[in-house]
């Protein structure tokens, strides 16, 4: 039987070399493209009617829009509207990565640290640039809270600095670990169904069904967490705290 981590293997579908670098179109890339296509179909074709009274798909598209729009408005405020398309793209990309990975024979590109790390670093670097662009050197005040006694600076500043710098790690590892562990657990449990004596297999089957439902919840939840943390970081950079 295949190893539980077999599902994370990346294999090229169309080998491509660019300047000596391997950028083959892989199963991971395929699911990224599927996510883009699915987002387009869902949001653009779903809104096809542009009806005043929405149908099912249009309702779902509108709910998704308002969900992210409210998240940005509540966490970042009015000035967050400029970054709404980016946050929305991030949410769709992570959500669909998680959900498509739940499909049979699917591949979860969000279970790869390279992908989550790149997304988290993009958010981190982007937010830091926005912070310095808006507040200049004053942005460094972030690392020393207002009203704290000056004597606490030698302790507070390193703590704040470390907590700030660890953001991309926690952001990327949270998503990557959740997706990886969930899928491994499902694989292992599902493996038990066939390895244990026939009737006893019902127990891991029931567990697998339960965990599958839970994993769908986690797929949404982790996408939500990734997005809302990005919003919170963005808010720190725009409004400072």
């Amino acid at each position, binding site marked *: 039987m295949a190893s539980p981590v077999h599902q994370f293997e990346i294999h090229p579908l169309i080998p491509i070399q*660019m300047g000596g*670098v391997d950028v083959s179109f*892989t199963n*991971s890339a395929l699911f990224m493209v599927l996510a883009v296509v699915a987002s387009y179909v869902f949001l653009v074709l779903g809104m096809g009617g542009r009806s005043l009274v929405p149908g099912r798909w249009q309702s779902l598209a509108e709910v998704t829009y308002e969900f992210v729009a409210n998240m940005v408005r509540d966490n970042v405020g009015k000035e967050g509207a400029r970054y709404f398309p980016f946050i*929305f793209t991030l949410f*769709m990309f992570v959500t669909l990565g998680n959900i498509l990975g739940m499909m049979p024979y699917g591949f979860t590109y969000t279970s790869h640290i*390279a992908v989550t790390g790149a997304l988290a670093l993009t958010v981190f670097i982007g937010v830091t640039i926005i912070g310095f662009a808006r507040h200049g050197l004053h942005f460094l005040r972030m690392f020393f809270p207002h009203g704290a006694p000056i004597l606490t600076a030698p302790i507070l500043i390193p703590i704040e600095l470390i907590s700030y710098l660890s953001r991309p790690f926690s952001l990327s590892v949270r998503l990557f670990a959740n997706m990886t562990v969930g899928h491994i657990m499902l694989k292992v449990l599902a493996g038990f169904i066939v390895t244990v004596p026939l009737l006893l297999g019902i127990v891991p089957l029931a567990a697998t069904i339960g965990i599958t439902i839970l994993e769908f919840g986690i797929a949404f939840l982790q996408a939500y967490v990734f997005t809302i943390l990005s919003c919170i970081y963005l808010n720190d950079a725009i409004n400072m705290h």
Partner: protein
Amino acid sequence: MPQFDPSSFPSQLFWLAVCFAVLYALMSRVALPRIAEVLTERQRRVDNDRDRAAQLRNEAEAAIQAYERALAEARIQAHGIAKSADEDIARLVHTRTKEVAERLAVQVKGGEDRIAAARDAALTQVRDIAADAAQAMVSRLVGVSVDGSKALDAVGVAIQERG
């Protein structure tokens, strides 16, 4: 674990960049404006309808007020008309009563005058008759003929004495 195999990183990052960029372009250029347009249009329609409803309600209230004002005016007018009619009738009754009373007074006075004249005439006749009777009685009893004017004087004195 395949996740920590760096040989797949360039390909993953390349396709991540491509797909994310395409998705960003599709979302920001096509999908989000389209949804936003529908949502704002709906909001606009809802606001419009609400505004129109408020306007219609105001108009209805204005109409009710106008109606009540007209009703109140009509009531006041009706009251005025009734009052003036009352006054007219009262005046008419008064003048008619006065006219009738005056006419009656004239008639009563005429009647009284006539009665007085008749009484006077009767009294004068009574005097003449009494004088004639006295003249006749004197000539029969005494055999003396009394002058007519003297007999009248004597009757006048007798009437005077008896009151």
